[in-house]
């Protein structure tokens, strides 16, 4: 059997790999939490790539309802058609629109079903999906038929921790928290994305990135994806490691900091710190 592992574009830690493989073996949904930008959504894409199957994405919004993922019955157009004397009207199945889950259940190869940012939805949303995710089946009232998954899809659910999820739902999932990568993993991640980058630039950038992250009182900590964006800019502008190192010691904001600090208050904080350290010296 194929096992998930780090790919060319994605560095997965040992515990994450284990989590993915366990949830695939036991056919249970895997709930992924972690700081924004730690590669939660990317993980689902990589699993789909690895197993050479389709990624079926369900992006959750605050207005998303659970039944939209199953199917929707278009009563209005059926009524219209009945007035026009369309023959389609006789069969109610013509007016049932398949939702994301239905499509995933019917797919031939075991697909990857990504339920993205489940915490965005209404507080009852996860409870409405319990049966569907547990038994991988649901009932269509309009046609009185049971839809059962041909192959249990690999279900990845991400959450940004905006709302607490109900216990009954959690009990049916495996849970993994992607913690912020350590320096060695960060280096690996950078290498994967920019294979030709110089070693000293990596070190310098990680150093100033971590100083920003570890600053007390910062509101929005920059994440891995922001580090990568920032490096992209640095490479494009051809800034070398020495410039970065110079700034490190003086507590000055690194060049192109806009990619790292997304909050006005945070930029202000850093300018204050820089001012203080200058007046000290």
């Amino acid at each position, binding site marked *: 059997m194929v096992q998930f592992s780090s790919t060319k574009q994605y560095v997965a830690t040992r515990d994450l790999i284990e989590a993915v493989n366990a949830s695939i073996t*036991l056919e249970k949904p895997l709930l992924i939490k972690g700081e924004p930008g730690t590669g939660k959504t990317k993980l689902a894409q990589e699993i789909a790539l690895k197993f050479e199957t389709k990624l079926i994405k369900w992006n959750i919004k605050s207005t998303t309802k659970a039944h939209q993922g199953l199917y929707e019955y278009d009563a209005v157009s059926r009524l219209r058609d009945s007035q026009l004397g369309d023959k389609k009207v006789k069969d109610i199945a013509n007016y049932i629109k398949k939702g994301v889950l239905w499509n995933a259940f019917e797919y031939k190869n075991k697909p990857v079903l990504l339920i993205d940012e489940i915490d965005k939805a209404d507080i009852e949303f996860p409870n409405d999906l319990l049966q569907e995710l547990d038994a991988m089946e649901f009932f269509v009232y309009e046609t009185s038929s049971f839809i059962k998954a041909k192959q249990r899809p690999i279900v990845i659910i991400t959450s940004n921790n905006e*709302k607490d999820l109900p216990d009954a739902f959690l009990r049916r999932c495996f849970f993994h*928290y992607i913690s912020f990568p350590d320096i060695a993993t960060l280096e690996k991640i950078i290498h994967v994305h920019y294979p030709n980058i110089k070693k000293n630039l990596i070190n310098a950038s990680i150093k100033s990135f971590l100083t920003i992250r570890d600053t007390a009182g910062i509101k929005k900590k920059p994440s891995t994806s922001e580090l990568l964006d920032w490096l992209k800019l640095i490479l494009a502008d051809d800034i070398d490691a020495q410039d970065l190192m110079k700034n490190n010691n003086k507590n000055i904001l690194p060049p192109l900091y806009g990619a790292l600090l997304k909050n006005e208050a945070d930029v202000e904080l850093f300018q204050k710190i820089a001012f203080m350290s200058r007046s000290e010296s």
Partner: protein
Amino acid sequence: MFLKLFGSIRNNGVPVTLKEYLDLLEGLSLGLCNSNKIEDFYNFAKLCLIKDEKNYDKFDRAFNSFYKENIDIINQIQKNVPEDWVLNELKKILSKKDKKKISNDKDWDDILKEFEERLNEQKKRHEGGNKWIGTGGTSMFGNSGYNPKGVRVGGKPSNRRAIKVWEKRVYQNLDDQVTINTRNIKMALRRLRKLTREGIQDEFDLEDTIKATAKNAGLLNIKYRSEKKNSVRVLLLIDIGGSMDDHAKSSEQVFSAANSEFKSLDYFYFHNCVYENIWKNNYRRNSEYLETENLLRSYSKNTKLIFIGDALMSPYEITYPGGSVEHWNEKPGVFYIKKLTNYFDKFVWLNPEEKKKLAIFSIYNDFERSNEKKYVSNEFKRYRVSNEKVNLINSTKYLCV
């Protein structure tokens, strides 16, 4: 064997159920973690049993004790303490002076054993908030016996073992002891609602459609209606400053979590008792404020008024002009409280303090005779906000009846 782990996790206050334990066993029988590495088992057990990162730390602790108890079974070789690691820690903790002071002739194994115990204690105390070395001081190793010679002898490690993942306890700061989380607060506040249909009409209204079509001699006439939404408006007045500083933030969080549940939710601050002015930004309270009487003009009578405060104040702050601790007030606090409570239909006072301090203003016994005191405590429906969902539910019930 794993039941012990399960039990100790439960005893640590992590909500795990039998279903999760069965998942763990099923996974093991399917051949997961067959690599004989204890780390893999640790990861897998964490994956199955723990559903929230704030419980990771509790799990780490439970797993640590489980690991220690069963260390012989798990791995015969790993009996020894990592000597290189201990040495480093020793160097960190003991100054040269300490090393000289201490002289004893216990053998190395005993020292290590004792050291490990001490270190564990330190971890625990550290967690309580004390500094690592601070209070422990030199006495920490005073009687445990530390032989400078022994260090050198034992310094050549024969069995290396790295510090285990669960001993690092990286998730310590994710562990929170908050008993009311946003979810159960939301569930309680759900009762605080009146559903009305307003806004865009985008829901298909079957009944109305049938009626309209019938009227239309069978020609289809589709009707829509708007979705049901909560029409309750909430006004929060939060006591800030002094004894309330600890609670103000949690109160804010509680209600901002529920923000989407209401039609509108607004908040203002006051200090100890409501006087002429209230404010939104505590730092600019002297420049940006709103006159309390403005509330009567800008909010309708059916807005639900919620005070949050610990009501720890002297009677003068309520009953006498000039009683405020911050400024000279022309009219006594009770004047403004009466004004607000007369105007709004429904109001409660939520008290985040513990039960013994629950009764408003009651800590001053000499205040017993005052009429105002009776008025204030009779008038308010008081409920504690801390730890008990029940009280919140009761108060929301009252607000909505």
